[in-house]
């Protein structure tokens, strides 16, 4: 016999969990008592939202399940944003929330919130524990559901009296869920059909999303692409699924993607979507998206297929299983490499005519240059996290990701405040790598309290704040679409980020000189422990090119 919470710790160990993020409170006191003897590393965050995003960063960087603990009521509601974020970006996460005693449930007890109900639409699955004996099986089922199929967040809500109850713990051998059997093996006939279509396509594009990264199938995607000269573009979430720069790399597609990638989609005759979901930020005006193309859609989630764009050849399954078979069938189909010559000529034309560009300056640091400088300072060899906004788009455009799981950002939900805790989680997951964060002066303030977590735990995140004193992306939209009527986008000049860093025990630096920027950034990266670098950039600079909201991809501006 042991307490249910001690069984939770046994289950975590059995799942191979080495580190969790969390915050204690009244309703999860038994859980925190169990941590004392559990031998599992617990990182005490400064806000539950930070804990949730840290678990996401950990999961994205490592490919393992991130774990977060929070108490009932406000603790649980504080992880609503990270859970939603994880749902949108398919991040494997298990969240344990405390709940009031069962005899208080439904009485509006102190720190009671209907966590199960509140989180229902934003989790892949959830468990409301009703008997202490259910807990071990629920934990293993939660991990299984979180990491298999299309990954996602799973929540376990545990009333405090049940967690301290004694149970007869037996290790759980197998997980059987009759209603949950994700399809992983792609249908061979469909794969063959896709290979034949691809072999006959004269203007094909491979369009890869975050699903390729989740499936650990970057090498398999690259193998398919280079088995011929198939052009590749990735979504914001898919960056790193194909090594950039590369002769077949078109750049990111979508709202702030390259003209080359978007024009190629526009003129393609066959688009092979892998682990991507035709989000509105990709398609622009849906009715005018890739009007000449037929679609092969490979996804582990059948509901994504034909959700936005009807697929001509749907293939449900795991990209890691499907892509090598598709490559083999493609080779067997004996495609004529010469057929792509005209297509590449067209693509090279766009490349030459429309490279990513900005007007550089010696007088000030242009934000785009700041990203290029960090790429140079790191040699591209780091994990780069970002927050949300202009700096995120510039990072995606100008930092070239050669490997998967190096780019940690919030794509679907677009959560400001994601960056710092996510970078922290990534740094915990990969202590041997350099972890940098490019954030904005607005985003970073949404979870800057986590600097204390970094300092207390020796988590050496290098934070580069692209400081323009604006909510830059909102300002850009007000400039372009709202007659430059700026409404509440000027963030002013506070806080002093150098002093803020120092207050948290981190190193603070302020950079304003373009000529020494790369060297100064190197210095920051070499400085031990967490470092916050306040980089002053051009105040009003727009992120281009851009597909205006609701416009077609071929009508990109800027």
């Amino acid at each position, binding site marked *: 016999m042991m307490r249910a919470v001690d069984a939770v710790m046994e289950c975590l160990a059995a799942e191979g969990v080495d580190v969790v993020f969390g915050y204690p409170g009244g309703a999860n006191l038994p859980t925190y008592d169990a941590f004392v003897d559990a031998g599992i590393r617990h990182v005490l965050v400064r806000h539950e939202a930070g804990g949730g995003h840290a678990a996401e960063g950990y999961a994205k960087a490592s490919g393992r399940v991130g774990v977060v603990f929070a108490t009932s009521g406000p603790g649980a509601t504080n992880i609503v944003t990270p859970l939603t974020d994880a749902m949108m970006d398919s991040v494997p996460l298990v969240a344990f929330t405390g709940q009031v005693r069962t005899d208080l449930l439904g009485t509006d007890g102190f720190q009671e919130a209907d966590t199960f109900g509140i989180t229902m639409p934003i989790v892949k699955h959830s468990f409301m524990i009703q008997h202490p004996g259910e807990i071990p099986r629920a934990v293993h089922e939660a991990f299984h559901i979180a990491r298999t199929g299309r990954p996602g967040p799973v929540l376990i809500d545990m009333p405090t009296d049940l967690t301290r109850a004694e149970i007869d713990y037996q290790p759980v051998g197998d997980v059987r869920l*009759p209603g949950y059997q994700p399809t992983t093996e792609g249908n061979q006939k469909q794969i063959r059909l896709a290979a034949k279509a691809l072999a006959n396509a004269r203007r094909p594009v491979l369009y890869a999303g975050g699903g390729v990264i989740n499936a650990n199938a970057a090498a398999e995607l690259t193998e398919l692409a280079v088995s011929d000269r198939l052009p590749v573009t990735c979504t914001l979430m898919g960056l790193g699924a194909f090594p950039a720069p590369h002769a077949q790399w078109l750049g990111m597609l979508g709202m702030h993607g390259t003209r080359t990638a978007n024009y190629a989609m526009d003129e393609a005759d066959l688009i092979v979507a892998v682990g991507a979901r035709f989000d509105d930020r990709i398609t622009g005006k849906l009715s005018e998206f890739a009007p000449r193309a037929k679609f092969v859609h490979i996804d582990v989630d059948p509901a994504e297929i034909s959700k936005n764009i009807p697929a001509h050849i749907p293939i449900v399954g795991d990209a890691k299983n499907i892509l090598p078979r598709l490559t083999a069938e493609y080779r067997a189909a004996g495609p004529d490499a010469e057929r792509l010559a005209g297509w590449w000529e067209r693509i090279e034309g766009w490349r030459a005519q429309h490279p990513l560009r900005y007007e550089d300056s010696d007088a000030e640091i242009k934000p785009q240059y700041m990203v290029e400088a960090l790429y140079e300072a790191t040699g591209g060899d780091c994990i780069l996290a970002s927050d949300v906004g202009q700096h995120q788009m510039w990072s995606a455009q100008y930092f070239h990701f050669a490997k998967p799981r190096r780019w940690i950002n919030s794509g679907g939900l677009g959560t400001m405040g994601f960056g710092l805790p996510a970078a922290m989680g990534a740094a915990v997951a990969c202590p041997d790598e350099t972890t940098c964060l490019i954030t904005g002066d607005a985003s970073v303030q949404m979870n800057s309290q986590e600097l204390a977590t970094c300092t207390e735990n020796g988590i050496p995140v290098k934070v580069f704040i692209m400081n323009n004193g604006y909510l830059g992306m909102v300002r850009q939209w007000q400039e372009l679409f709202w007659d430059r009527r700026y409404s509440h986008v000027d963030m002013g000049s506070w806080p002093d980020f150098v002093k803020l860093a120092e207050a948290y025990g981190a190193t603070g630096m302020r950079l304003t000189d373009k000529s020494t920027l790369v060297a100064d950034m190197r210095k920051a990266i070499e400085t031990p422990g967490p470092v916050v670098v306040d980089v002053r950039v051009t105040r009003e600079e727009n992120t281009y090119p851009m597909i205006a909201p609701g416009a077609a991809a071929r009508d990109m501006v800027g």
Partner: protein
Amino acid sequence: MGEPGTKELLTLEELEASSGVRTGRKHILSILVENKPGVLTRIAGLFARRGFNIDTLAVGPTDDERLSRITLTLDGAMHPIDQVTKQLHKLVNVIKIRDLEPADTVARELALFKVTADGGARGEVMQIVEIFRGKIIDVTRRSVIIEVTGTWEKVEAFERMVRPFGLVEMARTGEIAISRGRGET
């Protein structure tokens, strides 16, 4: 499709997208779910969130106490049914979904009608009840309560017939359905 390596021709023009279409007819979905807390909320929430409209919904036990059956009807003109069923399948507690073919399905609904029926009208109402093989299950001086079972269409037809007499109120269960033949629904 052919064997691997065959140079069999496939032109992209031949390819057609099949899913995502609206059928334009009523669909009856029979959904077997685990009898666990929150299952109905998950399904109702999914429909609300994705903007699917439920026409009718009936929930009840099955022969297996661990399972419940949810029968819901929705309009295939409004929604791509395959998207609805695929989203439902993502719910871990959903075991099985059948989009029942009308021709192979027996569907019934129970409805109660309270109708004004005094004086001369009463006889006429009783005649209609007879035609529809309904039952009068309560009588007062000025009204009757009628029980009718049948398909959704039959109940609709009955409603149209008695409404002119003064329909005080009506309660309907929504259809439940089961497939014909020996196989399980």
